[in-house]
């Protein structure tokens, strides 16, 4: 069998550890993520999943181990060795990062259109009409009324802000999106809408994603594979239905059995 591009991982974590002084954030985490694959990282707060996400996305340097990312030229590069321009390219174009708190991922005082357009301009778009057109298209895709394009997100509801943040991230057609509790803090009905939207976009665009969540229902709906973390370490991995329907570790069984059936 010949190796094609998609046979090589897009992102690879190799024995990653991050400690803050004596406190361990995450330790000895290894996995591979392929194109179009959605990986959920689950565990309780303090399990190290958010630390892991920040190390994976180059926002924190690992204390040990490395993160490899396959650039658009097909070459896997160690994040630690990337130059400033390459890092900028990843953050502005090839990656998305969806924060739990949309105020961290949006500029709250400028218009929704500018929030989406800014990412486009960062990759070289200059034609105002086209930028506005693309921004309007994306608002529509995330189900925000086109009439709201000139309003700033501070006038938006929580659910709308989260959808706008997603549009801002996806407009540059990234290959990989990191999401930190994307549905956290939203009302249940708003969560369902966002989940459904995310599910559609991820499969339509063939996105790879790493989603940190403590919500197993979110993991089941969105992810192909699950990593379970406890005290900074990965204790169980597998297909999402394997981990949720046939959990092997005591802690995973506790997590799964703690969910109230709807």
């Amino acid at each position, binding site marked *: 069998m010949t190796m094609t591009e998609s046979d090589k991982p897009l992102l690879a974590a190799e024995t990653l550890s991050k400690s803050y002084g004596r406190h361990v954030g995450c330790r000895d985490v290894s996995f591979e993520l392929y194109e179009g694959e959605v990986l959920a990282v689950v565990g309780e707060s303090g399990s190290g999943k958010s630390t892991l996400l920040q190390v994976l996305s180059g926002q924190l340097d690992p204390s040990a181990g490395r993160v490899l990312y396959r650039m658009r030229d097909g070459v896997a590069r160690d994040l630690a060795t990337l130059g400033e321009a390459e890092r900028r390219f990843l953050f502005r174009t090839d990656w998305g990062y969806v924060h739990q708190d949309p105020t961290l991922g949006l500029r709250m005082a400028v218009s929704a259109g500018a929030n989406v357009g800014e990412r486009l301009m960062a990759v070289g778009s200059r034609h105002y009409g086209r930028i506005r057109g693309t921004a309007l298209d994306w608002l529509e895709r995330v189900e925000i009324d086109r009439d709201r394009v000139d309003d700033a997100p501070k006038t938006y509801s929580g659910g709308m802000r989260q959808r706008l943040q997603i549009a801002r991230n996806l407009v540059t057609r990234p290959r990989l999106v990191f999401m930190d509790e994307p549905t956290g803090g939203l009302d249940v009905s708003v969560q369902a809408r966002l989940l459904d939207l995310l599910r559609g976009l991820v499969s339509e665009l063939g996105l790879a994603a790493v989603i940190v969540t403590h919500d197993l229902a979110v993991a089941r709906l969105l992810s192909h594979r699950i990593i379970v973390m406890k005290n900074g370490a990965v204790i169980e991995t597998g297909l999402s239905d*394997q981990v949720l*329907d*046939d959990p092997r570790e005591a802690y995973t*069984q506790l997590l799964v059995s703690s969910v109230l059936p709807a």
Partner: protein
Amino acid sequence: MPAVLEIVQASKSFTMYLQDGLRLPVVAGVAFSVHAGECVVLAGPSGAGKSSILKMIFGSYRCDAGRILLRHADAVTDIAAAEPRRILTLRKDTMGYVSQFLRAVPRVPCLDVVAEPLIGQQVARDEARAVAGALLHRLNIPQRLWPVPPVTFSGGEQQRVNIARGFLPDMPILLLDEPTASLDAANRAVVVDLIAAKKKQGAAIVAIVHDDDVRRAIADTIVDVSKFSVAA
């Protein structure tokens, strides 16, 4: 012709840590094979492990021992040892699983729920919707329900949506967990026809059915699962 699916001495148990590490053996020494165009019906009393065996084949349950060999294209994959990625690919184009329950996703219309697996196989959206509609029609789901998310449908309607979703894509291996439970006679007959058509196309089928008439109509081979059951 070599078997499409061959299960070799597979076993499965659960260890329940929340119950002081209680070990629940489910099945051991499971061994049977399924050829193209053959329908194997798993028989045995409730709790004998029939559904567990289907889940082991689909990869939802991990095996403790043994092999589950799946022949596809020109390769053989052991599901019991395969990488998650490999299993995902096989689920997309080689093996389908139809349970009696639809895992309904909020807001996705009935027609799209059915068309989705085909779209995943790169069939054009309009074409996928057209064949999805035809199959829903055959299963007596009226057209006015197609744009509605099936969350609010009755149990029987949801089951028929699930059957349409599972039967639409061409899969060389089909796993059916009580596909006709809670269906009326007319719809049961449609499902029996669908299964017959799949067999004719060369699909290898493993099914659990409690209805005697349905079993008689579809089964080529009956495997008594109680011989694999492990008394707790």
